[in-house]
């Protein structure tokens, strides 16, 4: 007879376990369906010289990073230090996607904080961002030699993410055939 009281307790324990697992998940991180798919094409004017354009095609045969940033984005400021350090290692070239920003503000931002990008492109309307499934800034993509997206960092790139995920992946991808 006493064992019956264990049933609700057991159910409760199961519920606690599931809720506990739920707490460790971040609903804001939406996995990208673009992983291992071709990087969506775009052709956009570069920030420093609007007459010139950049397209992901220009980076064929290289492993590179696309970092989505904006001068209005607060966490980009903190991320900027990490991105600069990463660029300084010389291991990977980084392209900036200046997302829905005023070119004047963006140029100010770069001249004040330093420019880790080999080029930044202006996505004034956010259309390229939409194609890349950007839903928040910052976001960072790792693209391999064949032009496939291999990794997406949602939110700021941290030192840990660089050391544990991005640099090892870049090194591995560099070893792959183009």
């Amino acid at each position: 007879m006493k064992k019956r009281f264990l049933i609700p307790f057991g159910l409760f324990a199961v519920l606690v376990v599931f809720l506990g697992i739920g707490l460790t998940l971040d609903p804001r991180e939406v996995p990208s369906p673009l992983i291992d798919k071709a990087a969506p094409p775009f052709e956009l004017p570069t920030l420093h010289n609007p007459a010139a354009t950049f397209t992901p095609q220009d980076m064929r045969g290289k492993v590179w990073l696309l970092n989505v940033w904006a001068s209005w984005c607060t966490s980009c400021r903190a991320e900027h230090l990490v991105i600069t350090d990463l660029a300084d290692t010389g291991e990977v070239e980084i392209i900036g996607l200046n997302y829905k920003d005023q070119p004047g503000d963006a140029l100010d931002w770069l001249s004040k904080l330093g420019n880790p990008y080999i080029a930044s492109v202006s996505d004034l309307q956010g259309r390229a961002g939409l194609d890349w499934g950007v839903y928040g800034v910052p976001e960072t993509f790792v693209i391999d030699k064949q032009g496939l997206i291999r990794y997406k960092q949602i939110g700021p790139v941290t030192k840990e993410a660089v050391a544990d995920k991005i640099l090892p992946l870049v090194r591995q991808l560099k070893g792959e055939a183009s």
Partner: protein
Amino acid sequence: MMRWFAVLLVLFSTALQARIETHVFASPEDEERYQTLTEELRCLVCQNQNLADSNAELAQDLRRQTYEMVQAGKSNEEIVAYMVQRYGDFVLYRPPLRSTTMLLWIGPFIILGIGVLILLAFIRRRGREQAPAMSAEEIARAESLLNNPRNKNP
């Protein structure tokens, strides 16, 4: 006083303050398509809202995209596929039936089944308990009590 308060409430309600976007559609069907699509697609920034309800910038962009695609004569399937390609199944408020979403779709029926089984077992056990054995004497006494005209209701 209360009436003024009510008027103030209406004036400051966020629903009324929300920016009204005016879109011109070629046909009422297109407009309806736009409405259904923006109601069924989920905003990624404010995740408990659909595109139609959300005023987040991303939602505005996605609404514009939906509008343009409706105008371009794309079918609902094409528009939904376009969104899923970029943002994954996450944008759908109605999840598709797949092996990964199977539990989501049939889970409630499994739980219902379990509930019915428990209920049946419970009822059956109760039925058995309610038939206590009676001796012949007890039955005779019960019958005499029941058949006694004095005990009958007029």
